[in-house]
């Protein structure tokens, strides 16, 4: 590339050619696109650190808060699958979150099933299913989060 350029203007070969080549090497070998990508990288770092810092400063929860809600009932050959969604409303992550589903008839608990979520991250949601043998639509369905441990 360099040679080709100097050949185009032979008169400048001595003065401009070798001088500018040396200058390029001494000054910088950073191309325009490299600057662009580097600025993207810097923006990512600033953005990610900035968001995490903002998050840390604006949240101050001490315990996880999990809301469990049913999403639907699917009848299968193995029983009635109650799909549920656990949603975190806290900035604290819960580990080994125990989900309990009860079918009730008045004060009487007819059937109980449990599921465990490995993790429910802060403000995240996770889904699962409880498999009942009785038809949940004929009873009162109660879903609760029972226990957790800190990660």
């Amino acid at each position: 590339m360099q040679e080709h350029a100097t050949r185009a203007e032979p008169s400048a070969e001595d003065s401009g050619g070798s001088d500018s080549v040396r200058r390029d090497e001494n000054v910088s070998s950073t191309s325009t696109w490299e600057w662009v990508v580097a600025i993207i990288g810097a923006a990512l770092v600033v953005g990610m650190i900035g968001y995490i810092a903002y998050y840390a400063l604006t949240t101050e929860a001490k315990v996880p808060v999990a809301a469990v809600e049913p999403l639907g009932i699917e009848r299968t050959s193995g029983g009635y699958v109650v799909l549920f969604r656990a949603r975190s409303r806290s900035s604290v992550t819960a580990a080994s979150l125990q989900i309990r589903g009860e079918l009730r008839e008045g004060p009487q608990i007819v059937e109980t099933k449990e599921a465990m979520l490995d993790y429910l991250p802060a403000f995240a949601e996770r889904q699962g299913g409880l498999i009942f043998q009785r038809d949940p639509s004929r009873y009162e369905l109660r879903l609760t989060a029972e226990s957790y441990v800190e990660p």
Partner: protein
Amino acid sequence: MTVGGSSSHIAQAGHSSAAQNRKFLIDLARAFAGALIFALPMLMTMEMWWIGFYIAEERLIVLALVLIPLLIGLSYFSGFRETTRFTDDVVDAFVAIAAAAVMAALILTIFGVIRFDMPAREVIGKIVLQTFPGSIGAMLAQDQMSGEKRRSMGQKDRRKNHPSYAGELFLMAAGALFLGLNVAPTEEMILLSYRMQPAGQIALAILSLVLMHAFVYAVDFQSAPERPQAGFWSLFMRFTVAGYAVVLLISLYLLWTFGRTDGATIEGILSVSIVLGFPCAIGAAAARIIL
């Protein structure tokens, strides 16, 4: 620069910047490949996903901040191109971060580890954690993957063929960080420290020292075979023992980052540091040869 030469200089600058851009795109592709290769074991480790969302925010920020000088230093000693100025090292560091972050986001999305309906904190935590090993990989990609022979001596003047003592310790710390990061998040570190008897832990510490010292001799021989070798105790104290101290500090830092020191006793922290120190020691010792 003479007046007559200026027009040709402009023409040349156009040509050489096109060549630079082309070379940069090749380097960028290598950076992506390096990021993928180095981060792949961690991309496929579930503890890394989990730690991404439950890690304490300040520790995640410290990790991201530590990464920047680490990459600048690596660019200075190794890196994916010849750098002539400090700014070039800084630029390369951020290019490596950009490549690693994009790679991590892409792969984790394909794996379904990050999804669009997840909270930003969870997604960012996972990406930051993977960007750390990935950007080190991106930075080292050129050296390991370019297939070029090590550059001729004339081109290496700025690059430190014989780094200063502080430089040696820096390379050891970088190697320890990198290899340690591969295993530090896993449950097995804690489990091993529970299972090992004190005698076994002492034996592991001694083995780490012996192996590090073997590497020290290898480097000493490789870099200056013709020079009279430094005395055993001099090498042992300056590189092996000092290096192992660096390794233990890096182990401690990684364990703290991943929350493994919380609520642990001194004995517990020490024994898991020795366990994690083993891979860190190998990484530290190997870094002086590889980089």
